[in-house]
């Protein structure tokens, strides 16, 4: 059969069509449209009532309308507060001015009602807040951090059940309520949505032609590349345990092939049933060593604290600052020129297909003091509902460069918040570091050990010593 031009043309057209259409479909999947196919389950386009999420419907992944709240309703306005004065206890001195603006507006809307901020630095708050608030009826609204502190307050009977409040159902992203939920009831509003993933200097990466590492091997080789260019690859603040421990989240998220296995290991170590010297934990420790060997960290990293690390990142001496979205405002305050150059990536510590692409956390849990007088409780509840309105939440978010767990907040006024919002579209895990309940007896020594190993200490000896300490802590 003679193949004539027309037939070739037809075949060509067919082939092109066959090749192009999947591409078109793929591209269509990239631009989220309601009802169209999508590729990454769990990805979402934002935190508004008209955002979309990629969900499996009858076996196919399709963009659906996201249901962030308990229903599809829109956020409700705030409650009115009775007259009176209460105290608002929290640990963010850097947010004092923004909170005061929000409080002033609240007081204008509720004449005769006053709220006084009582602030302690976060270290002191962790240590002293319970003692202070437990005996202070006027501390009607306060915050707790996810995990140990929240549990302590819950056990002490200080948290009021606010599950049935309308603003809790309609203004808050429901998945953010997990840290404050006990036996199906909600005892607080986790206000801050953090993304505990490294931030990087996008400008520097672009200028040097570097690519963001997406596997463990790429990460180690990136370190070598950056180091030879005279740049500190990871400005890891190892001297301050609280900040140094953020990367542990990333190591845990992809430590196993499924979440349950990882959680089981963590629980076992937390209660002393599993030792640090077994393979599971040792492999994590060895990865810290590998990062050190690849030159990822600056010299004397165990003396490198949370003043030095963001300073170097802000000065353009370091490529990556591995803490989280909460580090952004520190960096931009140090060097305003960094604003707009910061982006975020998920730290993947495996070479196989990652289970999760990033970490998120919900903390700064606002609660009503169950031991306060009923009037004060009403004021506290009204104040929380005030903070839960999109307008006020937006004020807080943009003013303090943090994401919040409230629906319909528009982050575009803060370019840095906007630049890291793309992480929200990835498959995120709620920070597993907080699965360790025994902070003083187990988690702190464990993190200290990893810090030492990251600083070059011998893996076996450090794990052996720490194991002994943990055993003796658990025995007391």
């Amino acid at each position: 059969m003679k193949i004539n031009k027309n037939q070739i043309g037809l075949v060509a057209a067919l082939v092109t069509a066959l090749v192009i259409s999947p591409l078109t479909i793929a591209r269509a999947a990239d631009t989220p449209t309601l009802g169209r196919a999508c590729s990454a389950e769990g990805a979402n386009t934002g935190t508004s009532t008209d955002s979309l999420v990629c969900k499996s419907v009858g076996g196919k992944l399709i963009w659906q309308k996201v249901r962030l709240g308990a229903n599809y309703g829109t956020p409700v306005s705030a409650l009115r507060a009775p007259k009176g004065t209460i105290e608002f206890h929290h640990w963010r001195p850097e947010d004092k001015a923004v909170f005061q603006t929000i409080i002033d507006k609240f007081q204008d809307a509720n004449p005769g009602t006053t709220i006084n901020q009582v602030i302690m630095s976060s270290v002191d708050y962790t240590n002293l807040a319970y003692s202070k608030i437990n005996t202070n009826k006027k501390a009607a609204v306060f915050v707790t951090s996810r995990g140990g502190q929240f549990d302590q307050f819950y056990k002490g009977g200080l948290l009021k059940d606010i599950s049935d409040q309308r603003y809790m159902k309609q203004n808050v992203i429901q998945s953010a309520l997990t840290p404050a939920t006990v036996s199906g009831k909600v005892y607080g509003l986790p206000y801050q949505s953090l993304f505990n993933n490294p931030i990087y200097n996008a400008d520097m990466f672009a200028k040097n032609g570097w690519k963001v590492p997406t596997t463990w091997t790429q990460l180690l080789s990136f370190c070598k590349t950056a180091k030879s260019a005279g740049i500190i690859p990871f400005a890891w603040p190892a001297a301050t345990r609280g900040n140094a421990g953020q990367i542990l989240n990333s190591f845990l998220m992809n430590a196993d092939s499924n979440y349950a296995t990882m959680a089981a290991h963590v629980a076992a170590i937390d209660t002393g049933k599993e030792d640090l010297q077994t393979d599971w934990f040792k492999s994590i420790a060895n990865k810290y060593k590998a990062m050190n060997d690849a030159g990822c960290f600056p010299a004397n990293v165990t003396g490198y604290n949370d003043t030095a690390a963001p300073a170097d990142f802000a000065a353009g001496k370091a490529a990556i600052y591995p803490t989280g979205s909460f580090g952004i405002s520190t960096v931009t305050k140090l060097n305003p020129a960094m604003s707009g150059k910061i982006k975020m990536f998920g730290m993947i510590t495996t070479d196989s297909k990652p289970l999760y692409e990033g970490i998120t956390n919900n903390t700064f849990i606002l609660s009503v003091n169950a031991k306060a007088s009923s009037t004060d409780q009403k004021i506290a509840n009204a104040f929380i509902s005030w903070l839960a309105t999109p307008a006020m939440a937006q004020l807080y978010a943009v003013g303090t460069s943090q994401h919040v767990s409230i629906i319909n907040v528009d982050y575009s006024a803060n370019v840095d918040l906007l630049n890291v919002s793309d992480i929200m579209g990835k498959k995120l895990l709620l920070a597993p570091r907080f699965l360790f309940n025994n902070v003083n007896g187990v988690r702190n020594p464990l993190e200290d050990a990893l810090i030492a190993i990251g600083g070059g200490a011998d893996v076996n000896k450090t794990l052996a010593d720490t194991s002994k300490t943990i055993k003796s802590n658990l025995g007391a």
Partner: protein
Amino acid sequence: MIFNFSRRLLLSIFAIAVIIPTSIVVLGTFKSDFEIYSKPLALPKSFSFNNLKALFDTGNISTPFKNSVIVSIGSVFFTLLFATLAAYAISRMFNITGKVLFFLFSLGLAIPGQVNIVPIYTLFVKLHLTNSLIGLILVNIALNLPLSIFILTAFLKDLPKEMFEVASIDGAGHWRVYRSIALPLARPAVGATAIFLFVICWNDLLYPLMLINEQSKKTLPLTLIDFRGEFATSYSMLFTAIMVASVPMVVMYLFMQKQFQSGLTAGAVKG
């Protein structure tokens, strides 16, 4: 020869050791966070008063300053009042009661203040003394009585017996002797202890942190907290606050050196 050389060398080294950290703080008052970190010892690029302005504007420093003054002066006054009374009584009691009392008060020297936070806090809540300057003053008195009584008792004990015996022979009661003999004689010790105590009360952080909730009752050290953020510390503001808080101490120190130094030795030295 060697002596003079090593004398000069050692003195200079320690002098430099004192000057360097101090200048970091002093110069830091006029620098930005960034400058402090990158060039801590250099002269500020421009002597910017931004930090000071920010501190006075947002920190509202006049109220904490006033509160610190009230608490410090109040604590020192009452501590010394009670301490001199107790020291006089103990130094005149040549029996077992005196020894027991002295031991009891000295026990306080061995117990660090931080460990009593929770019991004192719970107690104060019951007494409605939290969030009050009076509560702070009471805590300070309790914490500082041991040291004051220790110093004053040793000093009074050192004075020749005759001075007191003369008065009692004349028929003067204990209170007269206390007022007209013991107190005047103890003046150097009291003066120095006063300054010493003032520094301790002025710089105290932990108890005000626990006890004070209201802005209007904050003391000066609590303003330092405002600069220790959750994830990073603003050293520029912190240093500025430290400077402002230290100025009264420095001024007082410069003017009252003699008492400061002589009082420390009172009760320390057996002549």
